């Protein structure tokens, strides 16, 4: 299955390893399935559309000329080697990149048809609609209740009873309720790593977003916690648009409906997950998913 111009001489053992690897990926791709999922009629999610979007850190290129569309009520994975701009693109969606000085953009990035980088964009509303979960769990040094209630509190929910309801719903949605319901006043820092990350997800869910961005959410967690979070993502995908950046190709294959492959700041390929892993269109994609580089 070695396509492409560069035929590198490889040893027999390497060849065997490669074939095994490809076979395992293919089997995962089969699990992921292919085919077009129908958009659910009652889905209220948004669409992220990027049109020739570029992001520069000073003179250095973050991402260049990205044109893609992220579909509602599904999980989209973005994969690629380190430094290829996946996180940069993700963080541009809710403009968290504004914290970094001396940056500049070109093109348009539309959420729900509205350009995010437009002067008239209300950042507070944008970030309420677009939730984010970071790589390293970062709960505030407050109690579990205060962590989850932080978001709703910002957007005007003041009554104690309303907050308690939202906290309970969010924690249940994040599959954390049963573990913490006895003591919501406990400090969030006393939870384990996996629990903290689920708390961050619950915190993001509490603002009732339409889109959830996840920047390598499981990279700091052990396999069991990772499994729990992947189950969670699977459960949530029916109600939210989820974009997940990951290093772990098996994870991308497991959870996502579509996958985008970034490399050196450019979007190389964007297609159904099954196709990317079984039958990638570009050689670079194939090299990456077969593990030849990156």
């Amino acid at each position, binding site marked *: 299955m070695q396509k492409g111009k560069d035929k590198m001489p490889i040893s027999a053992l390497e060849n065997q390893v490669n074939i095994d690897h490809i076979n395992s990926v293919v089997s995962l791709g089969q699990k992921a399935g292919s085919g077009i999922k129908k958009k659910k009629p009652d889905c209220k999610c948004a669409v992220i559309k990027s049109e020739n979007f570029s992001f520069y850190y000073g003179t250095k290129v973050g991402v260049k000329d990205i044109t893609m569309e992220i579909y509602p009520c599904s999980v989209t994975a973005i994969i690629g080697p380190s430094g290829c701009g996946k996180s940069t693109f993700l963080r541009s969606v809710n403009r*968290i990149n504004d914290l970094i000085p001396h940056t500049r953009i070109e093109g348009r990035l539309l959420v729900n048809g509205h350009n995010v980088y437009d002067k008239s964009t209300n950042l507070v509303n944008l970030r309420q609609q677009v939730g984010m979960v970071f790589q*390293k769990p970062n709960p505030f*040094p407050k109690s579990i209740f205060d962590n989850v209630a932080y978001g709703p509190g910002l957007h005007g929910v003041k009554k104690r009873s309303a907050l308690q309801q939202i906290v309970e719903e969010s924690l249940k949605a994040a599959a954390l309720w049963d573990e913490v319901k006895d003591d919501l006043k406990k400090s969030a820092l006393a939870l384990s790593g996996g629990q903290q990350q689920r708390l961050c997800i619950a915190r993001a869910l509490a603002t009732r977003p339409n889109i959830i961005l996840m920047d390598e959410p499981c990279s700091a967690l052990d396999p069991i916690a990772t499994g729990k979070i992947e189950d969670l993502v699977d459960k949530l995908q029916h109600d939210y648009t989820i974009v997940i950046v990951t290093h772990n190709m098996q994870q991308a294959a497991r959870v996502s409906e579509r996958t985008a492959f970034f490399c050196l700041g450019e979007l190389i390929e964007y297609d159904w997950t099954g196709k990317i892993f079984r039958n990638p269109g570009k050689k670079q994609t194939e090299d990456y998913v077969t593990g030849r580089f990156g």
Partner: protein
Amino acid sequence: MRHLIRRITDKAFTILTGTSIVLLASVLLIILGPMVWRGSKAVIFKDTVEFRKMQLDLFNRGNPAYLKIESAETESFRKTVYEIVDDFKHGIDTEGLIDQTKQVYRQLGKELRYKEATNEEYQRIRSLARDLRERLQTAFGSNDKKVIKENLDYVLQYRHDKDLADTAAVEFFTLAEDFQQSVENIDLNKRQQYAGSLQQIEEIIFRLLGPKPGDPLPALTMDRYGATRWDLAQKLLDKLLWSQQWIQQEADQPLVKIRVSRAGEFAGTKLEPLFGYVENNLEKMLKPEFTVYWQYFIDDSTPGHYFGGVGPEILGTLLLTLLAMLFVFPLGVISAAYLVECASDNIAIRIIRMSINTLAGVPSIVFGLFGLAFFVLFFIPLFGGPSKPCILAASLTLAVLTLPVMIRASEEAIRSVPQSYKEASLGLGASGFRTFMRVTFPVALPGILTGVILSLSRVAGETAPILFTGAVALGPLPKSLFDPTMTLSYGSYDIAVGDRLAMMVPHNQYGMVVTLVLLILCLNAIAIVLRARVSRKLRGQ
């Protein structure tokens, strides 16, 4: 070999650090030890009956009935002292005796005018009285025993003169008799010397036992009571028993100070038993008792800090410190927040940062003068306030003094808050301000409180900035923010330059300094406990 060298250097490092700790501890002990020991004497000491009298009069403290009994007990012992002294004085105080003769003569003249006497009688009595007066004065003024005896005998022969009986002239004879008695034992040549020494001795007894019963009350409060502390009384006793004289021990050498026993000086005279008596009976005259004068911290003080406590000073220092912290805390935190969060890295911001760092090193007297020129003379009158030193001006000056430290500490603290908290908060839709107030500030609070602790210590102990802007050496309790106040730091300075009085109240000076150190310790302890609690909550316990 390398292994051995590494081991040696490790050991050397440990020893070096250990030595520096020991050095620090010993320096602290050397500085603080004597200070605390002597300062505690302001509160824990042996007092005397004079102290209790003073407490009753000035502060209404104590049992009046019991005190009366005590005073009566001491009276009998003190009487002896006064008697001995008076007795001796008669033979020495020639000036006084001469004055007394003049007085008697005048009195006699007045009586004669009221009495209906014939002209002849009047003249005779008058001339006789004048004659007696002259004779007495000669006797009193002479150093020659023979002359004295001659004149006194002359005077005394008129004792039973019928004209002079029942008149004021009887005084003449009492004076003559007394003088005769006392003169017998005195070396008349030494009279000048005795007079000088006697004055010193009387002064010491006045300081020891207070004013003589029957004498008019002195004007100054500090003169109205004797030695209020037993250690003071001991010092005065020593001064009483030993005089210091400069004598020339060797030719061509500077004069040497030696101690001479006063008892030896007055040997053979009527005053000699005084010294032994006072030494043996001082306890009965003063009734020393061990006491804990804790009201030292709340009592008002009297002029010169002679009696009383440091209550108003503590209040003044607390007021100034807390008010200054109230001004500097929001100002420092907000400035630091701006510098960290919003300021872009251009030349203006760099100049501001440099200025803040430079300001931290400016001498405090410069701040004092600045406070005077700006706050007292310009800023406060601008808003309609009075243009005089006041608490408001002083605390504003202190706030400006400690602002750089506060900004630096806050900046460090805010910078050390992990970026992830900020990202999380912003990602949830918080504005920059909400993020700062709800997330960044609580996490930076322990570091900011460290800045508060550093500032507290500096502000509480500063003297130069409040010198012209709000501190006063002695005055009433401040009634508003526009009044000046006494403070511990300024009070210590004032006593230190008050020379004569300071030597008399060393315990007060130490007491004030130790109170200042204790006050700063307490304020620091509160701030440290607060910081520890905030830290614990942040760490999740």
